[in-house]
């Protein structure tokens, strides 16, 4: 698939005139072509070499590329032949190497003049890589330096007679973006400035022996004599020699289309391409600087997009400033690239600026939002959790995408989130896994309170029990126990229905609740239930639980006083008598026991007995429970002693004796007789 190239031929026949033209030009353009096709200046034809002229025809939408030859066969000096090719601007824009058009030029003669009245069909070849020889390179560098470092000045240079001069100028022309290419005016041999009005020529070459190029307007132009040492020139030369080696042409086309500038932006474009090609860590920062105001490239969305792509591809090694740049310009990146690189960016943001990641998943730019959400979905849950930070609530957007985070203790540990935070993220707190993770992770009291409030005390205690069964230390769960114990009724319910309660949990609860905290408005005291179960599990209640239960029995709350006393008294008494009941363990207990003389204050066993007796009498412990308080007669006897000493104790004992006298249980009948004997023995003094 090629393009149509129109053409025209001008030469001398009773004056310089048009011989043929395959396209209808506007009158203005036809006059301009007539002028441009004539010899470029006095003495040019005497050089004896052909030259090129390039210029736009705005009215006709065509670019004219012309080759002029001296027509030495003509009768007058100064006559020329000019073959002009006309390329539509749109076609010029898509040609990779418009310099290839020069292959269409034909040296005309009078006989062949008519053959130029039809257009030509041009098919471009793929540009080929080839190096410039030293002289070509020097000319290229001089011209490029002047053109692009002095972008607002007309450039001129001296040239030799060699044909490569035209090739070098065409190579420069090849390396321009469409808008610049179609506005670029050049002439490779002239003796004077060929500018007409405001149509200034960018580049004009004159003979090496000419004193200088003559400018008619108020300018002297600038002679291209020096070579820039800046890296942009080396980059441009590299592209000139290897047009297929990189995406420079495409970058030129895109950037040139996006930028409004002319020659003045070439250096910036080359600098940008050179910087983006670098692999060093500082390259990203340098590239960002090139597109940050007030630079020329800062006005280009394409340039920013390129830099963003480059930064994205290195998203795992960006500084804060570079990261900010990427985030600010994410909307410039295509959805495909976002999807390709988004995960890397998300991972990096997670490590260095997770709050930014959270912002991006709710970004108002749909492509950004979608890409970041997809990236977050794919991120490893542990990684996500480990990079969460305490003290902020930005994790909510992440939660909405990754509700599984709430099943990770790390999440709770790092965020100390409250239930409201989770609910605001649209999640429902209801699963055991969530509660378990929260229990293991949370240590903030407010957060614990909020979660406990949502899940409920029973669920919390069940969870704690479950965790303890797996080996979790009760100490780390104490806060939760404490929170659960703020709902005594619920705790009571839990204890009452605990099948095989965890002894450590029970201990933890006792550490948080006073013995008389839990209600027992009806039925069996939940403490009795749970402690009996514990005793059954482990064989013997821990001393702390015994103390707690004894205290419970001594308090006003329990409806199972006798059973509690039976469960705990004898064991406690034995501990007290054999010295294993330390004062430090039972100070609270002792405080609730009846007063004794100072001389007896050391005798905990005595005090236990007195307390027991007092409670039995005051609570009217059932005779069945009373007679079961001690397994030995000696201890039972001491209990009787304590009971008898209490006000109303004798009457109570009488009652117990009578109630158990005819019991169906032999041990109760034995105890009844024991009490009877005791009473006989100790009541004679008042008979």
């Amino acid at each position, binding site marked *: 698939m090629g393009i149509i190239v129109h053409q025209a031929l001008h030469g*001398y*026949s*009773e*004056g*310089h*005139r048009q011989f043929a033209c395959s396209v209808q030009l506007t*009158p203005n353009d036809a*006059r301009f072509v*007539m*002028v441009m096709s*004539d*010899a*470029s*200046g*006095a*003495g040019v*034809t*005497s050089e*004896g070499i052909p030259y090129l002229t390039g210029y736009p025809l705005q009215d006709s939408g065509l670019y004219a590329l012309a080759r002029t030859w001296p027509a030495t066969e003509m009768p*007058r*000096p*100064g*006559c020329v032949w000019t073959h002009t090719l006309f390329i539509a601007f749109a076609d010029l824009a898509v040609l990779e190497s418009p310099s290839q058009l020069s292959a269409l030029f034909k040296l005309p003669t009078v006989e062949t003049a008519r053959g130029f009245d039809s257009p030509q069909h041009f098919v471009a070849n793929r540009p080929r890589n080839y190096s410039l020889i030293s002289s070509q390179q020097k000319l290229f560098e001089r011209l490029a330096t002047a053109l692009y470092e002095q972008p607002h000045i007309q450039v001129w240079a001296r040239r030799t007679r060699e044909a490569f001069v035209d090739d070098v100028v065409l190579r420069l022309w090849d390396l321009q973006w469409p808008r610049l290419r179609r506005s670029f005016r050049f002439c490779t041999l002239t003796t004077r400035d*060929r500018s*007409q009005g405001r149509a200034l020529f960018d580049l004009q070459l004159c003979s090496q022996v000419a004193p200088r190029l*003559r400018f008619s307007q108020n300018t002297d132009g600038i002679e291209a004599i020096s070579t820039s040492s800046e890296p942009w020139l080396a980059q441009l030369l590299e592209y000139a020699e290897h047009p297929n080696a990189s995406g420079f042409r495409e970058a030129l086309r895109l950037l040139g289309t996006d930028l409004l500038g002319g020659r003045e932006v070439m250096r910036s474009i080359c600098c940008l391409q050179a910087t983006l090609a670098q692999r060093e860590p500082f390259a990203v920062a340098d590239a960002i600087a090139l597109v940050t105001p007030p630079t020329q490239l800062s006005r280009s969305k394409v340039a920013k997009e390129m830099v963003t792509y480059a930064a994205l591809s290195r998203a795992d090694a960006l500084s804060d400033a570079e990261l900010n740049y990427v985030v600010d310009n994410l909307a410039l990146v295509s959805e495909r690239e976002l999807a390709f690189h988004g995960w890397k960016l998300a991972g990096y943001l997670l490590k260095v600026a997770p709050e930014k990641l959270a912002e991006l998943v709710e970004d108002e730019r749909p492509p950004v939002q979608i890409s970041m959400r997809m990236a977050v979905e794919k991120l490893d849950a542990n990684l996500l959790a480990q990079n969460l930070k305490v003290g902020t609530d930005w994790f909510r957007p992440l939660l909405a995408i990754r509700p599984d985070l709430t099943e990770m203790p790390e999440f709770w540990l790092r965020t100390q989130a409250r239930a409201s935070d989770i609910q605001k993220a649209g999640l429902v707190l209801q699963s055991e896994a969530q509660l378990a993770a929260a229990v293991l992770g949370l240590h903030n009291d407010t957060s614990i309170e909020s979660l406990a409030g949502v899940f409920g005390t029973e669920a919390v205690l069940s969870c704690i029990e479950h965790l303890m069964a797996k080996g979790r230390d009760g100490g780390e769960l104490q806060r939760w126990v404490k929170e659960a114990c703020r709902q005594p009724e619920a705790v009571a319910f839990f204890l009452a229905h605990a099948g095989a309660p965890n002894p450590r949990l029970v201990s933890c609860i006792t550490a948080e609740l006073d013995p008389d905290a839990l209600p027992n408005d009806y039925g069996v005291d939940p403490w009795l239930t749970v402690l009996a179960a514990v005793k059954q599990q482990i064989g013997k209640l821990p001393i702390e639980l015994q103390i707690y239960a004894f205290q419970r029995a001594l308090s006003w709350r329990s409806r199972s006083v006798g059973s509690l006393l039976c469960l705990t008294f004898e064991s406690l008494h034995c501990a007290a008598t054999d010295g294993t009941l330390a004062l430090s363990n039972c100070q609270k207990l002792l405080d609730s026991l009846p007063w004794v003389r100072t001389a007896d204050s050391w005798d905990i066993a005595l005090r236990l007995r007195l307390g027991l007796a007092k409670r039995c009498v005051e609570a009217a412990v059932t005779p069945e429970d009373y007679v079961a308080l001690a397994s030995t007669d000696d201890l039972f006897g001491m209990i009787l002693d304590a009971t008898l000493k209490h006000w109303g104790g004798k009457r109570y004992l009488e009652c117990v004796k009578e109630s158990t006298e005819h019991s169906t249980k032999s041990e109760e009948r034995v105890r009844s007789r024991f009490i009877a004997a005791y009473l006989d023995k100790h009541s004679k003094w008042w008979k």
Partner: protein
Amino acid sequence: MTAHNIVVLGLPGSGKTTFLAALWHLLTSNEVETKLNLVTLKAGESGHLNGIAALWRKAKVQERTQHAGDRTVTMSLRAGIASEFQLSFPDLAGELFQQMWETRECSPEVAALLRSSNVLLFIHADKIKAPGWIIDDEEDAQAPSEAGKPVPWSARLAPTQVKLVDLLQLLQVPPLDAGARCIAIVLSAWDKATGAGMSPDQYLKAHLPLLSQYLAHGLDKDWKIKVFGVSAQGGAYDEISKPSRDEAQRILAMDVPSQRISVISAEGQSHDLTEPLQWLLV
């Protein structure tokens, strides 16, 4: 200072630039007496004039004036002891006037110049394209340019005097009309025409009868006309980078280059190229 403008008309190759080159040499060399003397030249224009004068001195053919090579020469002159005046005249490419005939187009800049009341009309005495006989045109039409196809008529093919009459007609209608004018007709390369033994007026009448009749009866009666025969070169010059011819060698050998110049009018013959100018300005 009084300012005068002269517009120099002429088809391509009619001798306009050669006249200017010779005139410049004449004014700057002071080799012969002239009716007008140079006082000063406007700054920046000497380069071009010196260049063409140098070629003239070397008896080299002037390079044709390019389309974009139009220049206006402005110089301060004095006639004898009279006060100084400024004279401007452009060295226009002959293609511009050809374009006026062929395409009926004229740029505003050239139109402004053409409204000058003083006209110097150049006609190459040896390159007059005469009208063709009908029989000759018939033969041309059947010439084998493309077999079986007629040769289309082109304005380019018109005779010289037809083009010149048309040009003069254009000067009398808007936008080029400037009222009555003085027109000095310069038959250049007069050295080629002397063999006919005619005066310039006679030569004009004989070889350009249509033009002669138009000058007599077609112009407004207030127009003033005079015909000069001018040989600004004195003979055939050499082309640059080509071997020198005998005639050019002879011309070069002259001691006083200004004496190459011949100006013939009804009053006689001289070397003074300023005569046509002086006539226009009086």
